[in-house]
């Protein structure tokens, strides 16, 4: 029996109406299989969207995670904990896929060990941080706003220094959160060429 015959027979079996199963069963079965496939896909995506996954890599655990633990986003009086994906992976479905594609670049980095020591991480930190700043700048600090929103911000309950800043630059849409709040979750790299949000003047340009 040649390959062609085999293919033809397969096709016949496949295209012949089912003798043993009802149409209803098949439709339902197909539906369920679809659900399971979609669910599995979703679960896989969910798993890679958990903090435990992120810190399964020592680059993430020993550098950024250790630092995060010191900050207000790890423990606070409100008991709300910001995890890595809260700030780093957009909750929007399509953006999410796009981020995952980019993440395979990281897996590459892991395999080829581009950042296997603290020193190498620190050397690369400005570059990595800049990627994040640019991303948050271009989406108007979307991830921050998932938890904090300018609309619900009661500046009369903030201290005057914060209230004044927000009133002057945030509510007028001149600046976005990340312009002023860099380094709220991790230690900062050399900031000589990165201006603070409220001036736009860098230190090295003096």
């Amino acid at each position, binding site marked *: 029996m040649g390959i062609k015959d085999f293919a033809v027979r397969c096709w016949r079996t496949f295209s012949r109406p089912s003798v043993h199963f009802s149409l209803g069963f098949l439709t339902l079965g197909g539906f369920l299989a679809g659900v399971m496939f979609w669910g599995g896909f979703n679960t896989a995506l969910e798993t890679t969207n958990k903090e435990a996954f992120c810190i399964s890599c020592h680059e993430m655990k020993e550098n950024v995670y250790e630092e995060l633990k010191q900050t207000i986003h790890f423990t606070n009086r409100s008991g709300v904990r910001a995890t890595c994906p809260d700030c780093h992976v957009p909750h929007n479905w399509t953006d999410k896929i796009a981020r995952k594609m980019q993440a395979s670049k990281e897996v590459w980095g892991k395999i080829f060990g581009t950042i296997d020591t603290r020193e190498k991480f620190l050397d690369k930190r400005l570059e990595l941080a800049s990627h994040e700043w640019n991303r948050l700048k271009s989406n108007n600090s979307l991830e921050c706003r998932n938890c904090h929103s300018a609309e619900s911000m009661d500046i009369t309950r903030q201290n005057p*220094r914060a209230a004044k800043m927000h009133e002057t630059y945030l509510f007028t849409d001149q600046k976005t959160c990340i312009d002023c709040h860099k380094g709220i979750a991790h230690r900062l*790299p050399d900031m000589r060429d990165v201006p603070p949000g409220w001036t736009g003047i860098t230190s090295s340009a003096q």
Partner: protein
Amino acid sequence: MKIRILLAAFALVAALPVLVAGAGAADAPKLPSGPHPMVQDVPADPMPREIVDDVKRTRNYADQPPLIPHAIRDYQLDLNVNKCLTCHDRKNSEGAQAPMISITHFQDRDGQALGAVSPRRYFCTQCHVPQTDARPITGNMFKDIDTVLRGKEGGK
């Protein structure tokens, strides 16, 4: 009868240190590591609140480093970045509406004014500190210059 009185007396004597200590402890300052059995779990006091009301505090003498009236939690102060200077440096004070560091912060130890903050003034929290609402453990008998000059209680 006698035995009962004796027992009561014993109980009283045994309780004496506790009673005395209790009376004393009422107004004595509570030392964080005061005398208590090592094996005993003493609940920690709640953390005192930071004072972050942005209100300037009186300086006790003219060259006292002013207290920091705002939050500085997680402010990074190292080789990479000096968070304080992002507001208090000369070029940033307008955008931040913060008081500029005074000329003394630009001077080296020979009084020579430098172009940027002097290295010996780089670590701001060496001299400037925020306050909390904790009650002082011991009283403070400091008198400022005006009180001394008035000579009523001080000046001797």
